[in-house]
């Protein structure tokens, strides 16, 4: 019976196709060209899709920034799911980092744009414009920097409140001065400057401590008196004469002692769990990191106390020195941008880095002046923005992020937001097992996944929706499992969840249907725009021929490919269509 229905449905599809498209005798329908985008290693396909849908629906010539849409989506989703304190970064089970902008839903990205506005990509110079090297790395760097900065500041200032926020800018300024010095100076000079006594011409000990206690480190207490300042100068001179230096040699031994102790403590009664080698290794790595991190934190602190005690027996100055220690940049971080980032945020340090580090930043060029300058500018903007968003959740923080990364974009948000007010996004699900929380401005259509709808009928219904949209001049977002892109036979069914031979390594992906055509044999095909630059043929099966074609009327398309309609719809999770206006 089901087979019979399928045949009837398939016949209906063919007859419908042969009858002509858009209610006439046309055999194809196209919408005006949309911008070809290359998302590189960024997981923003859904935002690329939303970008094209918005560009199409508004008839804009200017491309819409998918970077900004991705970040708007993150905040919007956090709001819809009621996750006001979501982090910008999450760590996967395998230890990889991912960001809130990686993976998402096109309709929700639209909804985010409708609530928060959107920007022209020309205003997003840093990330998706010409000349961005390794944009995914740049994005990762900035997002991690911002996320951890927000987090660390919130933690450190939790009990300080207004006073802390008010002094934040100076805190950062001091922090950055130390960053720069750490890469420019020898260890002794750096240490001396860090504690305010390199030369009297550059900075006096008294002014540093005064700064630390009154401006940079608001928890420290009151300013020092002139008498105390003199005492500090003398103490620092004494300290300097002792040829103080950073010596990390105790770290390996201390690590082993601590590791053994921690292992005994944490593994008591858990030996059964250790039967899994993988788990044991993971635990061991984790434990090592914990211990290493605590050591890296502890040992410099001890030195900071030593220094402080050599200065004055004042508890608040001890605290200041401890905080100064926190701002110090370990040298190994100058050899790798990621490590530099880790130091900037004081996270992710491990002993392998610490023990392999030298006491000096041997090559200032590694962490270039340009990078430092960018970080300084960046942090200055963070500071300014933070002051305005002291109590905001993730959404507000992301808004701040936009203003930091792309000031011109921020100026466009409100203007462009108004353009979307008359639009809603219709999300048509084709796979019942994959749900998504739908927030405002998204119209859910689950009719094609209702009980009793056969696969052919589902494809027919979806095709009708696509044709209707294209005939109305609207592009159609399509969320798929990429398996069909190089699997030799129609994949069908459970999409990416099925482990078919040769199908490994596929995932969910969002693209956009921009044209449809009925071939002379009655088969229908779609022209799908991807976001992988100009690519339109893919590494197909190892021995297969093309399932898709870049050619159209003898002309090679750019960034788009033709695909059989049934093949695509068999592997489609949902469709996204902008309606209205």
């Amino acid at each position: 019976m089901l087979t019979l229905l399928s045949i009837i449905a398939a016949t209906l599809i063919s007859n419908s196709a042969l009858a002509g498209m858009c209610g006439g005798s046309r055999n194809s329908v196209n919408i005006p060209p949309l911008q070809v985008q290359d998302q590189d290693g960024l997981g923003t396909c859904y935002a690329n899709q939303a970008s094209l849908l918005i560009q199409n629906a508004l008839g804009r010539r200017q491309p819409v920034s998918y970077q900004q849409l991705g970040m708007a989506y993150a905040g919007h989703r956090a709001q819809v799911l009621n996750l006001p304190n979501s982090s910008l970064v999450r760590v996967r089970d395998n230890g990889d980092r991912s960001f809130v902008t990686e993976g998402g839903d096109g309709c929700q990205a639209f909804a985010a744009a409708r609530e928060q506005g959107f920007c022209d990509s020309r205003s997003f110079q840093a990330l998706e414009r010409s000349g961005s090297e390794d944009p995914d790395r740049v994005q990762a760097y900035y997002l991690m920097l911002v996320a951890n900065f927000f987090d660390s500041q919130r933690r450190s200032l939790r009990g300080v409140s207004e006073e802390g926020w008010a002094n934040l800018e100076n805190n950062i300024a001091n922090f950055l001065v130390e960053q720069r010095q750490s890469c420019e100076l020898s260890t002794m000079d750096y240490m001396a400057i860090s504690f305010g006594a390199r030369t009297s011409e550059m900075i006096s000990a008294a002014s540093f401590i005064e700064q630390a206690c009154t401006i940079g480190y608001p928890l420290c207490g009151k300013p020092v008196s002139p008498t105390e300042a003199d005492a500090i100068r003398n103490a620092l001179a004494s300290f300097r004469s002792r040829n103080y230096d950073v010596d990390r040699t105790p770290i390996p031994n201390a690590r082993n002692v601590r590791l053994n102790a921690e292992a005994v403590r944490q593994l008591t009664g858990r030996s059964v769990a250790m039967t899994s080698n993988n788990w044991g290794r993971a635990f061991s790595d984790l434990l090592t990191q914990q211990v290493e991190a605590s050591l890296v934190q502890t040992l410099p602190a001890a030195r900071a106390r030593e220094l402080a005690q050599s200065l004055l027996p004042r508890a608040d100055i001890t605290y200041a020195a401890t905080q100064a220690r926190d701002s110090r940049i370990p040298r190994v971080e100058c050899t790798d941008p990621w490590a530099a980032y880790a130091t900037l945020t004081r996270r992710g340090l491990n002993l392998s880095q610490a023990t392999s580090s030298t006491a000096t930043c041997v090559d200032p060029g590694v962490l270039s002046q340009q990078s430092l300058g960018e970080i300084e500018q960046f942090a200055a903007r963070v500071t300014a923005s933070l002051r305005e968003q002291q109590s905001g959740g993730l959404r507000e923080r992301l808004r701040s992020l936009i203003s930091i990364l792309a000031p011109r974009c921020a100026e466009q948000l409100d203007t462009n937001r108004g353009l979307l007010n008359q639009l809603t996004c219709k999300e048509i699900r084709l796979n019942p097992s994959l749900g998504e929380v739908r927030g405002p401005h998204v119209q859910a259509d689950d009719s094609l996944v209702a009980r009793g709808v056969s696969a052919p009928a589902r494809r027919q219904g979806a095709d009708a929706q696509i044709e209707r949209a294209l005939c109305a001049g609207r592009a159609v977002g399509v969320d798929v499992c990429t398996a069909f892109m190089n699997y030799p036979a129609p994949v069908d069914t459970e999409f990416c969840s099925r482990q078919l031979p040769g199908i490994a390594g596929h995932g969910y992906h969002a693209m956009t249907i921009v044209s449809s055509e009925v071939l002379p044999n009655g088969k229908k095909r779609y022209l799908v725009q991807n976001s992988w630059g100009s690519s339109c043929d893919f590494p197909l099966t190892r021995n297969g021929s093309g399932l898709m074609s870049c050619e159209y009327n003898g002309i090679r398309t750019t960034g788009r490919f033709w695909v059989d309609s049934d093949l695509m719809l068999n592997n489609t999770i949902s469709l996204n269509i902008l309606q209205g206006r």
Partner: protein
Amino acid sequence: MKTTILSLFLLCAPLALASEVKENWSIGNTAIEFVQVPPRGFLLNTSCYHAKEKCQAFRETLKREPLVMANDGGKNPGSAVCKKRGGSVVIAMSAIDETQGFCVFADKSMASLDAF
């Protein structure tokens, strides 16, 4: 005989040149000329295209890999392959603001990400 060969060369040379489809992409403020490599149509910077095997990007494009998606968000698989082979990705733009990722190798040769 020499005249015939020369005539053939002069006749064919413009045809050979005409068969090269070139595109210009900008990276920052620098415009770079690329050649579409038939039959797949990916792009190599012109000097690399002519240098053939002497050029790293050209050699790398001879090794093609099956499509492998990485995590969420449909990252361009060519980006991952580029980095795996020691290159770095740079985003270039056309005159109409279209974007295209290129893999830049140590010898500064470049191939579009779809080459992999």
